[in-house]
Every structure is written in C-alpha cells, then in structure tokens.
C-alpha cells in the first residue's frame, strides 16, 4: 500500500515493524519559528557515520535514534508568512484549494485518536507560539503557554460542584445546538445558493461542537491520573524555565495516555535575553556577522539541549520506541527568509534510523516534505493516501 520512490530504495529510513502491539503509537511535533542556521545545523556528510554538526552536538548521545533530512520542504514562499505551513504542506492562503484545507499533521493524528484519550491532542508552546497547528476547518489551534495550566488539565480533578455545573453546561449547550440548527434551517429558506453554502459552514460547526461535546461528556466522569510529579504551580517563570517543564509534561501526558499527540511551538519572540544574548529575531538577521552568529549558536544549542532532555525523559518512560518525535521548522534560512531546505529531524518511533539522509536537491527529483508527513501518519496508524502536497509516501514503511 505504500508507494516506494525507486531512486530512494537504497536509502530507506525503514519505518520498521511496529513495536509491541499493546503500545499505542504516539506523536510529538516541535516547531521553532526561526528554524536553525543551516550551516550549523546540517551535517557536512551523509550516512550514519556523519560527523555531528555544531548545532546538533547536544543530541550526540542519541545519534542512533534520529534521522536528519536534507533538502525537504513544501516549495513554499513567504518567509515568516510561510512558516505556518511546516506541518501542513499548505499555506492558509492556499487552503481553499485543498479538500482538507491546511490541516496539520498532528491534527490528522488527533482525529485518528478521537475520544480514545481524554485529549485528542495537546498543543503547547511559549508565548504566542508559531501558528503550527491547524484543524480541518482551517482554523489555528493556539498553544497552551502556561505549564501550570497544562498540569491542571492533565492531573487536577475538578471538584464535584464544578463537575455538576460542567455537566449542566454540556446539557444546556446540547439543547441550544438543537435550537440553532432549527434557526439556521429557517433562515436557509430565504437564501440563494451562495448564501446557503455559507450557512452550511455554520451547520457544520454546529455538528462539530455537538460531536466534541459528546466526547468531552464521556470523559467528565472518568478520573484523571495521579500526577507522578509534584504539582506545577502557577507562578512567574522565565521561558527558559518553562521549556523543560513542558518537555516533562508532554512526556507525562503520553505516559499516562492522557493524549497520544503533543505539539510544542517556539515563537519568533522567544525570550533569548534570558540566555544573555540579543533578541531572537534580531539575531536571525545575522547577515553572516560573526558576533551575531555566535549568539545565535548559543540559542540553538540551548534548544537542542532541551530536545536532548526530552529524548532522555521519553527513554526513561519507555516511550521512545512508540513515540515519533518530529523537530523542525517551516523556516529554512531565517537570514534570507527562505522556506526551502527545511531543517527536519525525526526521532524514536522504533525506526531504524539513518543518520543524515541527503535527499535529492535537483529540481525535478526533489521529494515533498508532505510525503514524509504522509508516511508518518501511516506509521501512526492513519489509513490515507494523501496529505498536504504529497505525491506518495516517503519512504516505504511496513504497517502492521
């Protein structure tokens, strides 16, 4: 069922056989708006024995457990304005031309999980995030940016009174939705076709809310898991304190099966002053100046250290084999606002990793990043033949 790309047979990532079948598959996606300085990020040689690059150095202990891809992208243009297509393959401005709009990788996976977990997905991030996660309606899902709130959502049980009132709200809302559906039908009788298609969107929204109400109602009475860590309090924190907390919480969310899909967004406005360097956006416009580049390296090194921290935690929790971690950006080179040759790293998932996989750079031979996302979804268990701009899968994988 998977489409192999002939020229690449020799370079299979080898999405290998499923790990233990009792382990559900999980997905973590991490996006950094400004990407990574290409000269520092991409290793100078390919294959599994590549010399680790300066930027990737903090991940060296895990080198057999991830693959770096060169020359993958969505063929997008727009600089900052195209970064949001990282996990979608499609810019929001183009979404009308695609049947699934600009839905992102994580949200397709989340739909697949449905109500099997309390949260179909957890979208987290710093500050405003970077517009990474999009649902089927073409609407962006903003990140939870306070670790205390995420902790609460995962582990803190609402009291009985609040549960009763929540149930009341759910019941009332369900009745209201019935009434609104009737109202819409009444209005529709006065409309022509163009207007009616707009009203259809409204009716679809009504159904969507209904479906989600039913899903959350089912979870209302099930107890939340007990937190294995001390409660995370709501307090003043630096962003560099928040990141490790989020990494831990994402791991815990997967471990307790509160969700199987988690995302994390690092915005353009990441508080790099906390690392005693200049503003992130300013540094990204380094114009190859040594002073700025060295500061940028401090930031990127810091981030890689955090990802290493995440990998460590996932291993500790025994999740690395069942969790695929996607790390990257919709920005290829922030200094010239290029959205080509994106930094893409895939880790874990019980795959046989290939080190540095250099994909064809020539125009006609290039591989769509969407193909990799399609394969990721198939690995996750989603049965589908297309995603974003996919032209096939990349690369062949065995689905059990």
């Amino acid at each position, binding site marked *: 069922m998977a489409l192999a790309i002939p020229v690449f047979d020799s370079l299979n990532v080898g999405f290998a056989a499923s790990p233990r079948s009792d382990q559900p598959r999980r997905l973590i996606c991490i996006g950094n708006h400004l990407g990574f300085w290409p000269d520092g990020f991409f290793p100078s040689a390919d294959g599994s024995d590549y010399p680790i690059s300066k930027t990737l150095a903090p991940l060296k202990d895990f080198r057999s457990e991830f693959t770096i891809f060169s020359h993958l992208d969505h*063929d997008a*243009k727009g600089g*900052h304005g195209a970064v949001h297509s990282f996990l979608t393959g499609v810019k929001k*401005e*183009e979404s009308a031309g695609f049947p699934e709009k600009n839905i992102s990788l994580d949200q397709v996976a989340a739909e697949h999980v449905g109500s099997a977990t309390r949260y179909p997905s957890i979208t987290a991030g710093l500050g405003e995030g970077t517009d990474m996660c999009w*649902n089927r*309606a*073409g*609407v*962006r899902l*903003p990140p939870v940016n*306070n670790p205390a709130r995420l902790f609460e959502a995962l582990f803190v049980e609402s009291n009985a009174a609040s549960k009763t009132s929540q149930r009341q709200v759910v019941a*009332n*809302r369900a*009745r*209201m939705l*019935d*009434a*609104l*559906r*009737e*109202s819409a039908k*009444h*209005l529709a009788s*006065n*409309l*022509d*076709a*163009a*207007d009616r*298609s*707009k*009203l259809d*969107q*409204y009716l*679809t*929204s*009504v159904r*969507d*809310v209904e479906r*989600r109400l039913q899903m959350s109602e089912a979870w209302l009475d099930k107890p939340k898991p007990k937190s294995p860590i001390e409660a995370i309090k*709501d*307090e003043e924190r630096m962003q560099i304190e928040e990141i490790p907390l989020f990494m831990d919480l994402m791991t815990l969310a997967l471990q307790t099966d509160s969700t199987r899909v988690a995302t994390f967004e690092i915005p*353009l*406005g990441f508080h790099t*002053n906390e690392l005693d360097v200049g*503003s*992130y*956006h*300013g540094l990204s*416009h380094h*114009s*190859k*100046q*040594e002073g700025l580049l060295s500061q940028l390296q401090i930031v990127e090194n810091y981030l890689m250290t955090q990802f290493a921290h995440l990998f460590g935690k996932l291993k500790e929790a025994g999740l690395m084999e069942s969790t695929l971690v996607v790390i990257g950006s919709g920005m290829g*080179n922030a*200094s*010239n*606002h*290029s959205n080509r040759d994106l930094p893409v790293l895939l880790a874990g998932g019980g795959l046989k990793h290939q080190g540095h996989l250099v994909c064809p750079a020539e125009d006609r031979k290039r591989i769509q990043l969407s193909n990799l996302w399609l394969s990721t979804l198939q690995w996750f268990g989603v049965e589908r033949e297309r995603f974003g701009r996919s032209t096939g899968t990349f690369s062949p994988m065995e689905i059990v």
Partner: protein
Amino acid sequence: MNNRLNSQTEKMSKVLDHQLKYTRWLSVSLICVFAWSGSTAFALDTPIDKFVRDFCIKCHGADTQEGDRRFDALTAKINTPDDALLWQEILDQLNQGAMPPEDEKQPSKEELLAEVDAITQSVSDAVQRFKGTGAHTALRRLNSFEYRHTIGDLLGLNVAGWNPTADFPPENRIAGFDNNAAAQVTSGMLLDHYFVAAEEAIQRATVFGPKPESKNYAQKSPFYFEGKAARDLPKLFRTDRYRWISDKGYDDLQARHYRGGHIGFEPLARGGAPQSGLYTIRIQAAAIDRTHPYDFLKDFRNGDPIVMELAAVNREGSVESTGNITTERTLALEELTSDQPQWFEWTVDLDCGEEPEVRFRNGAPAAKGLAFKLGKNVKGHPELEAIGKLGKGEIALAMLKAYRGPKLRIWEIQVAGPHLDQWPPPGHALLYGSLKPEQISRSNIQDRLRVFAEAAFRRPLRQGELASIGKLVFNKIDAGMQPLDALQLGFQAILCSPAFLHLHEGTGTLGDYALASRLSYFFWSSMPDQPLIQLAAAGKLHEPGTLSNQVDRMLADPKSQRFVQNFIRLWLDLDHIGEMPVSTDFVSFYRDNINAAMRAETEMFFRHILDNNLSPREFLAADYTFLNRELAIHYGLPPLEGVQLRRVSLPQGARGGLLTQASFLTASANGVDTSPVVRGVYVQEKLLGYTPPPPPPDVPLIEPDASGAKTIREQLAMHRANATCASCHRKIDPFGFPLENFDAIGGWRENYSKDNKIDPSGELPTGEKFQGITDFRSLLVARHEQFTRSLTEKLMTYALGREHTLADRAVIDGIMKDLSSNKGGFKDLVRAVVLSESFANN
C-alpha cells in the same frame, strides 16, 4: 442556473482587481490556463490582436509567459470575464507606460494611443454586457471587530475593558481586508467561543437590584505593604528586596513588570470596580530628578518630562508571570515636569472588575535591573559609593533608596464612582424591561425574546423565526429550570444564532433594513442605531437625500472613529507593526510609546482630511502632520511638548504625506531591517493599487551578507543583472529605494553602517528619475488620480465585504469623474461610495 451565475460572478470578481495578493494571483493564472487549453491558434486579426502580437506575444505567448501572463489566445471581442481581466491588465500596463519593456520593440505614439482607445472601448463594452450578472456579497459573518462592537452597542457593555472576542480565531483576509465574506470561515471552534461570549455578555448586562451608590475610595502613601496587610494582594503591592514601606508621605514608583515602575490601588485591588460605569480618578504626583547624573542609564533620556500613564487592569484569573494582569489598557497619559506635588484628574469608563494602576511610562528598567545597573556603576556617584558593602538581601534596596535618577512620585490616589445616569442600564432594560426576576414567567417570556431578537437581528422578525428558541426556553422550564435562567439561555441562543451573526443582504436592491446595516457596519463596525432603524421602518432610508444626511450624521458620531481606525488598519496592514518583534536596539520604540503614537498620527491625519473634506491628493502631498513630543524627536523635528498629538507644519524636506509617516514605514518593514523590494511592493499596493507579480519559482533569494560589506542596493543590482529578475525588479525596487533613508521604525538615517552610505535615488519604470524621497513624493503626487482610484476601490471593498468587480469598475469610473469635475474632497468621495449603485445593490 444559480450556480452558473455564481461562478460567473466569482470570476467577475477576479477581474480588474488591482490588489491581487499572491494567492489570488495563483487562482487567476489557473483560470487562465483553463481559458487557453485547447486553443493555440491566433484569434481574428483585428487591430488589437495585431498590436498584442507585435509587442506582447514574444514574452507572453506560447513559448514564454513572463509574469505568468499569456495572451496568444486572446480574442479582440471580450467573451468572458476572464478575458476582460487580461485585457484590463494589458490596458493598465500600457497606460502606466510599464510595457513593453524599454529594451524591447516599442510601438509608435499613434499606435499606442489607438490601441489604448480600442481596448478601453472594448473593455467598457464588456462591462456593460456583463453588468447584469452583478456582484454579490454572500452571507457575511460579523468579523471579530464587528462582533465586539455589536455586543457592546446592543447590550451597552464596555467592550474596551471586556473584549468578548479576545480568544476568537483570527479572521482570514483577502487583499488585507478581513470582512470579506468569500474568505470567512465559521468553525466549531468559533461557535464554541460564541457560546462563551454570549453567556458572559448576558451575565454582564444583567443587573437586577437597586442602583449602586457612588462611592469614594482613597489611598495615601504607603502604597506597598507587608505581613498581614499584604497577604491577599498581588506581588506588585508587596515589599521585597526592591520595595519598601515609605514613611515620607509619598512613594516613588517601583517596578516589577513595568519599566519605570507601577503602583496599584489597594482599595479596589480585590476584584476591581464593583460596577461598570464612569469613575473620577485623581492622582497627586510629581516628577523628581528628571535631570540625572547617570550616563549609563540609556533608557531614560536625560531631562525628559516624566510620562505618567493611568491604566485600567483586570487581574481576574491572572498569574504572576504577567504581573498579575489578564487585561490592561491605557486610559490616559500625562507629562509631568514639576517636582512639586500636583493633582491630576480624569473621568474614565471602568469596566466591572477593572482597577486603576499608575505607571511610569518612559522610566528606566524594572527595579531588579535598575539595582543591578546601579551596583555596576557606583564609581563617581558618591550617593552610591557611600553604601559600601552590604549583604545580598540589602544591597539592592539601599541602591534604590540612594538612587538620584528620574522618579515618578505619588502622594495620593482617589477614585469616585460609578456615576450612573440611567438605572437599570440600557442593556438590562432591553433584556428584561422592568420585570423583576420573580415576575418572569411563561406569559412574558415570548415578548422578551422577541424584543431582544429584533434588536439583535437588526430588523423585524420573520414569521416563526423564534419558534425553536422559544421551544428551548419552555422545554427547560418544563424540565424544572428557573424561568430567569431559561430566559437567559434563550438570549444566549439568540446571540449564537445565524441571524445575529450574519448580515443577510439578499440579492438585487437592498431592502432598507439591510441598507441600514450595510451603512452602520461601514461607518461604525456595528449595528444600526434607532434613527437608522426608524428610517428603514418608514421605507425612507434609500432616498438619496436621506442617505446623504445619514453619512454626515454617522461620520459626526464618535463611533465613526471605528471606521477610521479599522479601515486604516486593514488598508495599510498596520497589524504588522510589532507583529515581528521590533529590535531592542530601537530603544525609543519601547520607551516612548512610539507604536501608539505612530498609529494615532495616521488616524488623526486621515480624520483631518475626512472631516475637512480635503482632496484625497492631500494623503500624498500634505506638508503637515500630527505629532507629539516623542514623535517629533523620532522624526528629528523641532521640539514639542506633551503627549497629545497636534497638527504641525513640516519644514521642506523629507517628511510629508502618508509615505513618510512612521506607521507606513514600520508596517512595511519587519522591526529589524528594511527591504526596498518589500517596501516597493507595499508602496504600489497601498498607494497605487497595483500588486506586482510574485517572484517566479526557484529564483535564488538574496542573502544579506554584511561580511562582504555590500549594500542591499548592490545586491539587488546583481540580482537584476539576471534579465528575468530585472523585468520585475525594475518595476518594484525603485518604489522602495527612496524609503531606504528610513529605518525599520521610520527614523531618518543616512548610512546603513559606517562605510555603507544609502543611495535613495532611482528611476521609475516610466522613466522619471529621482534623487531621493522629496523628488519621489512629487512623482507620486503627480499620480494622485491613480491613488484616489485605488483608495476608492479599497473603500468599496471595505464597505461591501467583497472584492470589486467589473460592474463596480464602471461605478468607480463614474465616482472618479464626478469627483474630479466637482473638485470634490475625501468626504465627498465617501459619500459617493454610499450613494453608488454598488452600495445600493447586492
């Protein structure tokens, strides 16, 4: 049939749009591909085609399609709106003298004129033929901005304090405008937010009970507390390593989260104002040590007045990391120069839950950072040196106490209110009339629902329209719910129902109620008021005299400021300002509140031209602008005093017109550096109504390289050495070069770096040369008619919630003609839009 018409209409709406965004561009070229497939032969050999064949096909034919344009299958007779689009583009290019490129074969002057005449005639014939298909705004949803103000006006709520749309997903945009029905998405996520907003709106508007008494609250120094007194207060009120309890009868502002410092108002710190309404706020304050001995303190410009900000903050559900604030807004700014205590007084609208906070707007960094800086720079400052060695816990406090730098000093704060002139407030009266909770029953519920729904739907109700919501309420009562609660559920359902959320304009000539809404959403971004509804009910609103009077009345209403702010915001993409974090190298951007001032400048400028009915040419040519002290410094102009913006005549030179206003220059940059390409596109898009085509695929990007010490201009020159790149860039970059003298926040500069001098000269694609911004402005002013046309198109787009079409083109032609023969002003132009056929029909 309907469908066919609609697709026809859609195509038509693609015609003649001068604001093609890149995505639109793609869809247009897709259509073109379809139009050509199957037909490769040349069309009838009429004069038009001969011209196209002689001068255009070489680059826009079967073999090459520069700029994605291909004309070899165009027929002289325009058969489809698609063809009309292409012909109009050709016409525009010829009129602008932009085509054929100067290095290609040129038509003689006679040939050119004959061609332009022929195309003009042929397009205009097509316009007449296609006119019947009309343009139609599909069921348009209130966007977030409109929803917010509609909720505010409908229920009399203070939506400046409480923003019901704070968490709504962002609206999609077409050509910058976010009220375009075609692009709008309604999602389950949005509906979820509607539920929450409706519940809170009804709850906020509901105020049974007696009229709250006006109360007086006062607080004298100290403003910082410890122990028991501080226990339930946010950190900002508490003493710590940086704040202490004063015994001097005054306090200097100490900072936690706010530069310069802030103090809260303890009497209202536990939940904020109990009731929304007008409050009088008085503060006794003084500016201390404005002139200071600390050269290392770059954040405060030595000798400046101290800017005191009165803010309204809401702390509900807040966390410490945001300074215990969930929402904040500026109520007033005041410049203080005297070191003697003075009283300042304002009357402001506080929302329920909000409390006042006083801030030192242009102060030095927050206390922690300030103490650190002082500690590092004790040398040469005896008051700091005298502190000597102290423990870690004490040194900061000692530093701050000894500090001789600028301070905002407060003695007392008084708050009195709410001052309510109507009770119950209008929103409550609309919902419940004079009913008390226990009086609400089956017998009056239908009535209450009807009254509210008529107001919410902005028109009389249709037969049976409320049946389902009535049923919901009665079923709930049957199931044991209190009648008041059930009624409120019904109100919420009305606010979530499609008739409230959408403007239903139908097809053909607008009914008077739909016209009332179209007018009010144009000028007020909100529902029609009583006079408009009454005129609609009397069937008089559509009469030209009535409409014209309403334009004057509505523009005189303070609510019309929403039109000014929102139209400018969308037209000029002002949301770009600050969207990309502005580099901290631009100290003044943050310290001097330049962001707010630059927006206000453009808004006042626009308002001035509108209110005085000045020629739209003024937008380009004005030799005055609106500045306050800080903007004047930013522009390098003679000093002014005060935070209030006022009209200032500009000296001959760089500044003048929209082109050099800081908002324009900041919105077209990214907060760090500038690009002549980006600004070149922006200038043409915003001022001339033309969007240059996007770069072709796979063109190499220019990578800024300061190590090679090349200027962006030199790099672009290299880029243009490539002929493919040159064909577009010679039409883009010249519009950006003259703005290179302005940095990413609109400050003047002569050099990029020490060795890199800026060259702002250039040559327009039409051949006119300019040395820099002053010449360039003159060239733009000479194109003021093109500017006015593009402004008209944008007003139309904003007013109608759709892109303009071929049929509108004829309407716009008419407006332009009248405007020019009557020497009309901008207000005349706005009025003409309202009186136009396009506005009257859907």
